[in-house]
């Protein structure tokens, strides 16, 4: 390690010194609450960090020692930032042992309320690509494929330009794969199936990609942010990496917080940050009805619970929630949890890949009765039916898509409180008539 300055680790940026940037892709980024590790590389004027700028702090990965990368990944304790949170060190070890072939960068970001991976690709693409190359070296893979939603023109252009900048350095070859703009397209088995020339739908083979993936060979699939974090962990070392976050879940993570007016802000904070700190960062504290943690694929939490909860696997588990991809949707007073949930369930039904009966038929049924509940016409029998169907649908798809709908619904019923009673009694809360807050769901 040389004398290059490390990204700040412990300086908290208070509200007055907060820096708000808007990237060239139109994504709002705030340096509060900090520390800014990944975000310290985002160019304040909003442009893309060029390879030349990037190389001032990060040497080319082709010189990296594979053992060192695996050690850095394992010792840093870096967990996946795409949702499942699986330790990247263990993934690298398994794929390396089985003989790696290809590294897949999952930047599909099919979760509509997430902006972080798009922000990384359109602002600091080389942090992600270096991470992918480091991972490729660690598992002896000769190929890297970056998967991006083909409707996301700015991200596609940014990745193309970044790959071109890296010239013909030989190993490993970096390619861009354009994926359909569907939620399930980003599901690991759907992604592998698509790269194998099949439809972009989950498979029920039971084999994980790290055993049998693209071309039937061991495949490392990682979220874009995870790989950017790997670049930092490798560059500055496990001790630095662990200097914030929790012992079990070290480091920072990127959050996408959607609050008043439906504006999304990407912030960076240590794992374990309190909900209140996140709400403050988005100027959202104090006017909160409920919080949807994890985005469309998430869990509703009461505002008071979210404020005091630590945003980590362990901190959110008591509330039945999980960190997911770091998405927080702050529903303001004046909106109705049940009405938002009913619209989200329609979205779930529309996003089903249409393969499994309980998902194909169950989700529209849930959406319909949830909409009746939102309107106040479902009555107690409607709630009973929703709960019975939820129990029947849970765990019966080839992927977790239907499970997500069930979790969302159950959590909505749990946090709605007095509002639920009013809706059941046929007198829906005033928020049920409000314009939808979660927009893409309508």
């Amino acid at each position, binding site marked *: 390690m040389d004398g290059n300055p490390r990204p700040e680790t412990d300086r908290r940026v208070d509200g007055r010194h907060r820096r708000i940037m808007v990237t060239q892709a139109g994504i709002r980024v705030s340096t509060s609450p900090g520390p800014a590790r990944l975000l310290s590389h985002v160019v304040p004027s909003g442009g893309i960090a060029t390879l030349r700028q990037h190389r001032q702090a990060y040497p080319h990965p082709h010189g990296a020692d594979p053992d060192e990368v695996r050690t850095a990944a394992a010792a840093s304790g870096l967990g996946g930032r795409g949702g499942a949170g699986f330790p990247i060190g263990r993934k690298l070890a398994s794929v390396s042992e089985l003989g790696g072939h290809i590294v897949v960068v999952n930047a599909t970001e099919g979760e509509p309320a997430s902006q972080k991976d798009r922000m990384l690709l359109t602002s600091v693409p080389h942090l992600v690509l270096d991470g992918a190359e480091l991972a490729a070296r660690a598992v002896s893979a000769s190929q890297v494929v970056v998967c991006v939603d083909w409707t996301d023109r700015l991200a596609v252009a940014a990745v193309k330009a970044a790959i071109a900048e890296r010239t013909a350095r030989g190993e490993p070859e970096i390619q861009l794969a354009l994926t359909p703009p569907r939620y399930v397209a980003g599901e690991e088995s759907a992604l592998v199936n698509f790269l194998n020339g099949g439809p972009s739908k989950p498979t029920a083979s039971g084999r994980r990609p790290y055993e049998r993936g693209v071309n039937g060979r061991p495949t490392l699939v990682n979220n874009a942010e995870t790989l950017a974090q790997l670049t930092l962990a490798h560059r500055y070392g496990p001790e630095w990496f662990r200097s914030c976050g929790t012992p079990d879940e070290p480091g920072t993570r990127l959050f996408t917080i959607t609050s008043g007016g439906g504006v999304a802000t990407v912030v960076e904070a240590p794992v374990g940050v309190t909900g209140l700190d996140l709400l403050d960062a988005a100027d959202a504290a104090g006017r909160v009805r409920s919080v949807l943690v994890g985005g469309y694929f998430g869990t509703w939490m009461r505002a008071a619970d979210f404020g005091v909860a630590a945003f980590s696997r362990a901190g959110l588990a008591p509330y039945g929630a999980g960190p997911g991809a770091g998405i927080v949707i702050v529903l303001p007073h004046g909106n109705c949890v049940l009405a938002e949930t009913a619209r989200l369930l329609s979205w779930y039904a529309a996003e089903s890949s249409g393969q499994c009966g309980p998902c194909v038929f169950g989700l529209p049924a849930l959406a319909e009765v949830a909409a009746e509940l939102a309107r106040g016409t479902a009555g107690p029998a409607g709630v009973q039916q929703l709960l019975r169907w939820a129990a*029947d649908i849970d765990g019966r798809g080839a992927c977790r898509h239907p499970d997500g709908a069930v979790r969302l619904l159950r959590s909505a019923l749990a946090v709605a409180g007095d509002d639920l009673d009013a809706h059941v009694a046929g007198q829906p809360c005033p928020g049920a008539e409000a314009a939808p807050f979660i927009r893409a769901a309508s």
Partner: protein
Amino acid sequence: MSITSTAALHRQPTLQVDPIACEGHGVCAELFGEWIRLDDWGYPVIRKDAVPEDLLPHARWAVSNCPALALSLRKP
């Protein structure tokens, strides 16, 4: 086999459906109602625990009669 009955119990297979292949014919629930019921849309809801020895013939009968070949017995 009878001597190591506990171990044998743990090796008992579970009944599984491939949810993508399943077309909701409902034959399985007809043939093995002790273990399988249908949900409101006609798709099988299957008990997750191991199928006991004495019911295995029923399970095999259901597996071999699934029109979609979606049902299987799997060893843990």
